[in-house]
Structure formats: C-alpha cells, structure tokens
C-alpha cells in the first residue's frame, strides 16, 4: 500500500495545501483537477524529482525511486536510440542487459502494438506510437507503481480512445498500481478503479469516486454518465 500525504510551495506560492490519499496494490487511480492545481507536481514529488513536506511511504517504508515507472506527458524518448533501445534504457540502469531482457523488451513492444518497429528511431514513429513506446519503457522495468502524467493529452480523440483501451488491457495483465493524472473526466471514468478529485490551487483532495463499472466500459451507458456527473460535481464545475 502506498500512502501519500504531501504539501508543496514554490518560493511563496502554495501549490499543494495537503494532498492525502492511499492506493492499494493493483489499483488504477486517476487524479483529476483543473489546470495548474499541481497534478504534475504531485507525480514529480512521488517520483522523487521534487522536494516536498510530508511523507510518502510504500508498505510502511520510504518509497524507493527504483520501484517507480514514469510515463511523461511529452514522451521524452532518447532520439538516438531505436524503439527497443529505448525500452532497454530503464533495464540497463538496474542491471546488465541479458538475452532474456532483450526478449522481454520485444515482448513488451508487442504488447503495446509496436511489433515490427523495434529498430525504428523515435522520429520515425507517430505521436501515438511514441507515447506507447514511453509506456513500454516504463513497464519494462516492471515497476510496482506506474506514474502517468496525461500521457494521451496530445493525441486525437480516436487514437486516445484506442490507447485507453490498450492501457486497460495492459493493466489487467500486469496488475500494477497505476496513478494516472488527467484533466479529462471521461478518461478518468473510463480508466480508473477510483478517481481522486483535487480542488483548485492550493490543492487538497476534494473527494473520491469509486468506479464500479464492468470492463470493458461503455462510454455511452447511463451509468458511465452518472459517474462523470459525480466527478464533475466534485470538481464544482457545475
């Protein structure tokens, strides 16, 4: 179990008042909140990229950076490495790459729909493919917690929906804890087991919504829309 209780100011500007929540193993948590409320900052804090006040514990201990996989909003791929080279990046940092890891990397590329593109450079891939490669790189290190910062924000609606479905499939297979940041309510309700809603800056947890919908979820069903409404209400957009 990951327990988070953090606050954060940037020289005088209070960004996070106090965000407090827990995640359970294998849970898919979506964090929603308006632009500028500190969602990226929250993920960066969890990943150890930002100083903060408060505490973060994982199974009762300080969270180790190496148990985290990070998928950035911009893909942050290494342009001089091919797709498979990028997937191996995180593994290389943990250990010497073996034949086995190579096979694993190929397997992961297949699972994100990039088979046949192993030797392509990032510039030769489309935006959606690059985003999938970013996800592949993060899951290749077999992290216990996967942090995702609006990874589909820059995609068109069609590929976005497709990527969401693929992500759910991957998550159902791997059963990692996922913390997924987004400002799309529909995306949150489609993906999450639980949605955590943040208030505007300085942010706190405004409330949580447990999403008890069967998967695969139907975006047009009345229940789906009911959940969207509940999240919206928490965001006080209405």
């Amino acid at each position: 179990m990951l327990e988070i209780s953090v606050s954060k100011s940037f020289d005088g500007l209070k960004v996070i008042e106090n965000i407090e929540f827990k995640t359970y193993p294998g849970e898919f948590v979506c964090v929603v909140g308006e632009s500028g409320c500190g969602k990226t900052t929250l993920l960066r804090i969890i990943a150890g990229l930002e100083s903060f006040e408060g505490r973060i514990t994982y199974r009762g201990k300080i969270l180790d950076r190496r148990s985290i996989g990070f998928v950035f909003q911009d893909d942050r791929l290494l342009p001089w490495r091919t797709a498979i080279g990028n997937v191996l990046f995180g593994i290389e940092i943990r250990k010497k790459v073996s034949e086995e890891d190579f096979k694993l990397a190929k397997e992961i590329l297949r699972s994100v729909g990039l088979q046949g593109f192993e030797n392509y450079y990032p510039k030769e891939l489309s935006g959606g493919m690059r985003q999938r490669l970013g996800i592949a790189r993060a899951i290749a290190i077999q992290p216990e917690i996967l942090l995702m910062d609006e990874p589909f924000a820059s995609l068109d609606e069609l590929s976005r929906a497709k990527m969401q479905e693929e992500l759910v499939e991957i998550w159902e297979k791997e059963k990692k804890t996922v913390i997924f940041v987004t400002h799309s309510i529909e995306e949150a309700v489609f993906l999450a087991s639980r949605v955590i809603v943040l208030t505007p800056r300085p942010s706190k947890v405004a409330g949580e919504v447990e999403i008890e919908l069967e998967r695969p979820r139907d975006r047009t069903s009345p229940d789906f829309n009911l959940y969207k409404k509940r999240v919206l209400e928490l965001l006080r957009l209405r």
Partner: protein
Amino acid sequence: MNSRLKLLAFFTIIFLWYAVVGLKILTLPLPHEVGEKLLDLLVNPEPVLGKNLIQHSLASLVRVMVGSSIAFILAIPLGIIVGWNLKLDTYFSTMLEVFRPIPPLAWIPLAYIIFAGFANPVQLAQIFIVFLGAFFPCLLSTREFARATDKNLLEMACAFGASDSEVLRKIVIPSSLPGILAGIRIGLGIGWMTIVAAEMLATSGSGLGYFIMVMYEVGGRVAEIISGMIMIGLIGYLMNEVVILAEKKLLRWR
C-alpha cells in the same frame, strides 16, 4: 541533380580560369598545363626537393592527423565535462578564453623555442600548431552541444534512477555526438590550413606548404605552385567529405 550541380560548379571554375588567362587579365599557365604538371608531380619526384606530391601530401597529412588527434582526445572529454558542469565551465572557459584569441600561427616562434631541445623541433612545433588550431573549435562545439542537452531527458534519466555517471554516458555523451563530429570536421579543416601555413614558415624538408614555398623561392614556378595548391584544396575537401559521411552514418537518428 546534386552531383550535376557539383560538376557544373567545377567546370565553371575551369572555364573562368581559361577566361582570365585567355583575356590576359592574369599571366598564369592554363588549366590543362597545370593538370599535366600535377599528374607528373604525383608520381615523379620534383628535382629540387626529391619528393613527389604524394610524399609531400602524406608528410602534411601525418602532421595534421597527429596534431588534431591529440587535440580531439583532449577537447572532446573536456568539452563534455565543462558543458555538463557549469562551475567547471566558468573555471576552464576563463582559462581557455585567454588563449583562444591568439591565432595558432602566432605561436610558431614560441613553439620553436619550447621544442628547441627535442630531436625534431620543427616537426614537433608544427604538430603543436595544428593541435592549437584543431583544439578550440572541437572544444567549443562539443561544449555547446553538451550544454544544450535536453533537460527533460536528464530528468527522465533521474526518474529512472540513473546515477551521475550513467547520465553522462547514456544521455550527455550521445546528445553531444553531433557537436563532437562537427568539432572534428571544423578542427580538421583548421588544422589543415594551419599545417600548410606552418610549413611555409620553416624548413621542414617536406609537406605541401613547404613544397609551394620552395617552388616560389627557386624562381616562381607557377605550375608547380598551383599544383601544390590544388592538392591542398583536394585533400581538405576529401577530409571534410569523410567526416560528413561519418556524420550521416552515425547521426541517422536526427
């Protein structure tokens, strides 16, 4: 298309040469006369110095390769380190900025004095001058690219738990590679110009610069002089092309 334009450019030069001589604007041997001389000098030794043009070219090339290799071996790691670490940069840059404005050729007299005690002072001084000519462009180009390493990628590596040395090896060095190669290309170019000039100033017994100078001193043998100049141009061009080829191959990802 590209190669046709290159050919056209080449023939334009030859044509202009014929025109300038034909219209008596300059008194020079004609292109085909020089061409004949050049081919002759490539295989047959020129009597005054007893060496053919290939031997002179090789002599110059060896000096350039030795001098610039030493320059690159030092400039590349230094460029990466100072580009990466801002504090070291301020320290080293200030030191180097003092030397940079001094043209390599201005070092020649001092270089002779420094190397006077060695077995082959002229050769050493020439290599040293090439070193100076190649070092700074390579250092500056490498440093600029190392410094411009994408901060987002550095942070990504951190998020994946990379150590400082891993960040250096896996992020900073590969992202500096275009700068390193450009530095090598520019450094070789300047090293080549420097060696020819340095050879003209001293009795080195061989080298294209020396050859040209001697051909002038024994009585203005224009065809020989121009042949030497053509060799200098040709070799400089080829060196550049080789590095460009390496760039194309190594930087396919760009």
